[in-house]
């Protein structure tokens, strides 16, 4: 069973342009968009990261020193090796598409739907990529930083019932 630094070293060997960093005991690697599915499936099948803890996203619009727009975050854990690894994929408009990891971890289904709902990242090969929280007809992706906090009037786009009608 390998340690986390061995896993990271092997990952860097195998995939080009993988960078890693550590913050408060948490190891993070950044992989390229084109290699993200291969890297994740390698981590799952060869290094025992059998649990997908979370899939989420960060919008770095106007963030200081940021060069990429979105950071897609996969938090992995190995239940036997007791290792934790954060994998990050940087995405930029207009190519906001990554392969879905549902074939690797079933649990990614709803998490990827949530990321699609809130950030508009498309997961190719997802079995059922619909909005999960917002209504179907909602047009925007509200957790993007260029979406106004109070919305664009969606919350008031309803018919009004008066006493006479109902």
């Amino acid at each position, binding site marked *: 069973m390998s340690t986390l630094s061995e896993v990271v070293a092997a990952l860097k060997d195998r995939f080009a342009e993988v960078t890693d960093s550590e913050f408060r005991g948490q190891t993070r690697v950044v992989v390229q968009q084109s290699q993200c599915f291969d890297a994740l499936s390698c981590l799952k099948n060869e290094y025992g990261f059998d649990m997908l803890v979370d899939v989420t996203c960060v919008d770095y*619009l*106007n963030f*200081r*020193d940021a060069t990429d727009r979105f950071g897609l975050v996969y938090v992995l854990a190995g239940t036997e090796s007791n290792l934790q690894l954060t994998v990050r994929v940087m995405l930029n408009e207009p190519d906001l598409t990554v392969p879905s990891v549902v074939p690797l971890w079933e649990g990614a289904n709803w998490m990827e739907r949530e990321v699609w709902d809130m950030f508009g990242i498309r997961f190719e090969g997802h079995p059922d990529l619909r909005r999960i929280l*917002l*209504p179907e007809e909602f047009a925007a992706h*509200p957790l993007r*930083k*260029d*979406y*106004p*906090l*109070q*919305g*664009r*009037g*969606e*919350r*008031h*786009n*309803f*018919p*009004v*019932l*008066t*006493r*006479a009608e*109902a």
Partner: protein
Amino acid sequence: MAIELPENVVVSKLDSLASWCRKNSLWPMPFATACCGIELMATGASRHDLARFGAEVFRFSPRQCDLMIVAGRVVMKMLPVLQRIWQQMHEPKWCISMGACASTGGVFDTYSVVQGIDRFIPVDMYVPGCPPRPEQLIQAIIDLQDKIQAEGTIEGREFNTFARQQRKRALMELPIIGGPQIIMPPRQGVN
């Protein structure tokens, strides 16, 4: 014309009798969507005992209710449900907006939270507070009872007053869908 009435006979109007019956048997529809719902439950429970005012029969079917108590914030996905339930209730019906969130959106001034249910359904009584104490809700129900006694008729005339038909204040300043997007200006010193 003089009619001798026995001592135990009271003369009244039929309107007044009907209103008296209605106000003392309000059956609430608990539309509890958030933390205010807990206080609503406390109001119905033994310590505060809503049964003293004839309003303890919480029904979860809108067809059996005549008082909707909206307790908690209503999000845009919930609002069509709220309206459907309101439409399913039979006349005569009343609505209490309980708490800051139901009345105004409260602190949740975000894209998904409706800023006051009175924008979309008629409201008879507002209860301030976050959450309101059970005493406040009881006071609102007592006030509503007075209102029913004063206004209610068996012909439903109370629903045809001008004030009831007026559009609510908040509807005057609705934002326009598809308007110009608000984009945060870039911060200074960012490359």
